[in-house]
């Protein structure tokens, strides 16, 4: 193993050490746990940065270390059956390491103040540690097995973090929902892994891709290859909150706000996109098309919902979903680098947005607490307003983030978004799916609109409550510093020196398209042609996107700042649409009514079935009464009877019948004996 990989391992395990220390000795450290966790992450960040630079300046394409974890000592398809696992660092990994550790570090830092005085302060930091560990694991692994392992661990740690305030039923519910919805996606992921394993008997990326490249495809059918890719993408659907599994993410806002910044902006949700990026070489054109559509639909739905939300975190949540849709769409159309880049840029400004919103919420809480007001929702933007003057740093940073997310030039967001949109245009150019770029641009406009809506409503104008505003103060330095750092990172120069095009920046240079492994017949447009086409479409995309974003911003100002257009009037006029959007397209209700209800219903029916039918399978007439009791809902009180009772029952009945023969009258006995004798004679004679 080369030394750099040792560093990668160190980066991976430092958060775990933090977790172990804090979970076992957290009580002892009490208030210091936060500092300990932050210190560990700081070290981690430094190592990541070091590793990043050494990778960037290295000539090696990839650093890889693989070893056999489990050897089954058997041979299948003439390949020895063993589970190889290992770690690898390529450019993507190196970037992701920095992103994850950086955001995580900032969140640690931010939380020092934000979570101060929390009942489970040390537990919180411990959970942050395990979460970071799992996320880093996803990033550094070189095989699907470990990927799945860390995938699940991310699920677990997000469960812990979202449910941090588990006394609140909504928080516990949200954690559970996140875990279970993710599991649904994981199920597909797992099935995909099974297909891959069964066919290739290996789970390392390189092994799989080289096998596919060698013409070995699952069950000899490209459809199965497409299926395998899509099933693995299912994992991404879950983690990256794509339609139709996006429902968990908004609920997950029940967690502490820094947690939202960490898991819903930069890391956990990015894992899905990362997975697609990793799997990219084995995705067929069909698979990519499907992925693109999933991304587009997600982006659209989430954006429409975000327009009507009032909860600041909900808005951000849906904007996240929408942006994730963007990234997935970007990867789906084939704009690999653009998608990954958006992942990185989005990580920075979305984390910033969440942290900033955390800052606001923190201040609001503070003020409301002062007032003794426990009814006003601290997260509702309608109760904010006019915070600009009170919280200048927060306002200015949030403005930068909003500009970035809206795709205004000179921001990082502009660079990545622009490339994605160019990619969609190129995509439609090759195969005519024009709906994808249309959605892309439309969503860009929507994004600008709702983000500025949030900004205007929350920060500009007048605050309704004088008393409250008096108590609102800017957050302390530990909270604002992370905001400033992230704001800085939202400018273009970190990614490309050309503010209007990223394609010649270091990012595009280093983050080259992976070699596609799928057979040419089912592969998407060859990379060279596609990149060429992106260049052609770039200017068009830029003009369109800037124009549409500007339109969106203008609309927002017109409506909410200048109040030229009455939002309320619109709301009234389009009541059904508004409600539909406000209720998030009724996805939760739909799932509750279908999947959840069906599962629970089936479970109840089966439990009843188990108790009444299977168990008492032939209990017969005697159980009719119980049957009725079951129907009338008294299931609990039903005594479950089984084969035992069945035996006893039939045996008992026949035994009782046979008993009646034993009348005590000797002559009856003799008659029976004679009758038996006669029967026997008849049996032989007849």
């Amino acid at each position: 193993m080369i030394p750099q990989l040792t560093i990668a391992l160190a980066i991976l395990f430092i958060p775990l050490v933090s977790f172990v220390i804090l979970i076992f000795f957290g009580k002892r450290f009490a208030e210091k746990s936060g500092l300990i966790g932050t210190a560990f992450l700081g070290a981690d960040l430094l190592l990541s940065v070091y590793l990043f630079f050494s990778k960037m300046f290295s000539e090696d394409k990839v650093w890889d270390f693989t070893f056999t974890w489990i050897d089954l000592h058997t041979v299948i398809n003439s390949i020895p059956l063993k589970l190889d696992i290992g770690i690898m660092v390529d450019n993507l990994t190196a970037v992701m390491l920095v992103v994850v550790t950086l955001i995580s570090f900032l969140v640690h830092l931010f939380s020092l103040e934000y979570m101060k005085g929390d009942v489970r302060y040390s537990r919180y930091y411990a959970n942050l540690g395990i979460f970071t560990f799992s996320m880093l694991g996803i990033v550094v692994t070189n095989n699907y097995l470990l990927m799945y392992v860390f995938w699940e661990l991310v699920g677990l740690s997000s469960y812990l973090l979202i449910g941090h305030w588990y006394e609140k039923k909504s928080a516990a519910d949200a954690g559970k929902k996140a875990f279970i919805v993710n599991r649904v996606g994981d199920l597909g992921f797992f099935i995909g892994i099974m297909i891959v394993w069964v066919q290739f008997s290996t789970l390392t990326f390189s092994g799989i891709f080289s096998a596919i490249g060698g013409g070995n495809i699952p069950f000899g059918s490209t459809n199965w290859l497409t299926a395998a890719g899509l099933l693995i993408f299912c994992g991404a659907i879950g983690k990256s909150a794509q339609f139709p599994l996006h429902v968990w993410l908004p609920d997950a806002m029940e967690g502490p706000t820094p947690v939202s910044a960490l898991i819903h902006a930069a890391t956990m949700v990015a894992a899905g996109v990362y997975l697609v990026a990793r799997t990219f070489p084995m995705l067929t054109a069909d698979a990519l098309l499907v992925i693109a559509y999933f991304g587009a639909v997600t982006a659209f739905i989430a954006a429409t919902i975000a327009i009507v939300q009032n909860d600041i975190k909900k808005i951000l949540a849906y904007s996240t979903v929408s942006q994730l849709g963007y990234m997935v769409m970007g990867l789906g159309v084939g704009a690999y680098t653009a998608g990954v880049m958006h992942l990185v840029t989005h990580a920075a400004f979305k984390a910033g947005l969440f942290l900033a919103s955390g800052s606001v919420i923190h201040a609001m809480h503070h003020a409301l607490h002062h007032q003794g007001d426990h009814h006003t929702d601290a997260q509702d933007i309608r109760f904010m307003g006019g915070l600009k003057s009170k919280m200048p740093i927060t306002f200015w940073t949030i403005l930068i983030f909003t500009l970035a997310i809206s795709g205004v030039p000179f921001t990082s967001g502009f660079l990545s978004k622009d490339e994605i949109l160019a990619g969609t245009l190129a995509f439609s150019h090759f195969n005519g799916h024009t709906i994808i770029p249309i959605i892309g641009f439309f969503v860009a406009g929507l994004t600008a609109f709702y983000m500025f809506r949030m900004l205007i409503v929350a920060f500009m104008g007048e605050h309704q409550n004088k008393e409250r505003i008096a108590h609102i103060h800017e957050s302390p330095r530990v909270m604002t510093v992370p905001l400033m750092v992230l704001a800085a990172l939202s400018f273009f120069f970190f990614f490309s020196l050309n503010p209007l095009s990223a394609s010649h920046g270091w990012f595009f240079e280093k983050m080259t398209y992976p070699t596609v492994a799928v057979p040419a017949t089912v592969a998407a447009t060859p990379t060279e042609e596609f990149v060429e086409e992106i260049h052609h479409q770039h200017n068009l995309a830029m003009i369109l996107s800037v124009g549409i974003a500007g339109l969106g911003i203008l609309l927002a100002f017109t409506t909410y700042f200048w109040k030229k257009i009455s939002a309320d009037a619109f709301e009234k006029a389009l009541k059904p649409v508004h409600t539909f959007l406000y209720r998030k397209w009724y996805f939760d209700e739909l799932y509750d009514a279908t999947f959840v209800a069906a599962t629970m219903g089936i479970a109840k029916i089966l439990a009843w079935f188990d108790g009444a039918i299977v168990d008492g399978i032939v209990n017969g007439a005697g159980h009719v009464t119980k049957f009725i009791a079951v129907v009338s809902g008294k299931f609990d009180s039903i005594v479950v009877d089984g084969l035992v009772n069945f035996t006893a029952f039939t045996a008992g009945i026949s035994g009782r019948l046979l008993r009646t023969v034993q009348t005590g009258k000797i002559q009856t006995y003799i008659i029976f004996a004679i009758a038996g004798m006669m029967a026997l004679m008849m049996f032989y004679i007849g």
Partner: protein
Amino acid sequence: MNLYDIIFYFFAVVTVGSAMVVVFSKKIVYSAFALLFTFFGVAGIYVLLNADFLAITQLLVYVGGILVLILFGVMLTTNTVTIDIKSGTMNLIPATIVIALLAGMLGGIFWTSDWFMSKQFGDIVHTTTTTEIGNALITTHVLPFEIASVVLLVAVVGAAMMARRERNN
């Protein structure tokens, strides 16, 4: 029809007729006395079957012993003051069916079976069998004979024990 046949039919009628009285009579005393005639009839049949010793034994044991025992039983178990020596019947219908079937079947097989019959049937010498029986009892059948003595011992002791009057209680 020779004399042998006439005697056979006479005894047959006596036996069966009295047996029917035994079975169907309402009064138990009638039954008991009819049984006497049945035993007589059977003894007569024994004679016809060249079993003179058996016939005598039949008379001695059955008429002299068993019948007397039965009569004692009848007397001792019926309250002589209120003479209710009628004995009811039960299970008539099933009994009739079962017995009719059984009798039919028995008659059928008796009618049709070819029995183990010696070839020298024609020249049987009508002699007394007492000597032969005596011989057999102390040679070939000595074991059953001795066991029969145990049977009688048990019968005596057992009957005495069962029927003994209980004092002081």
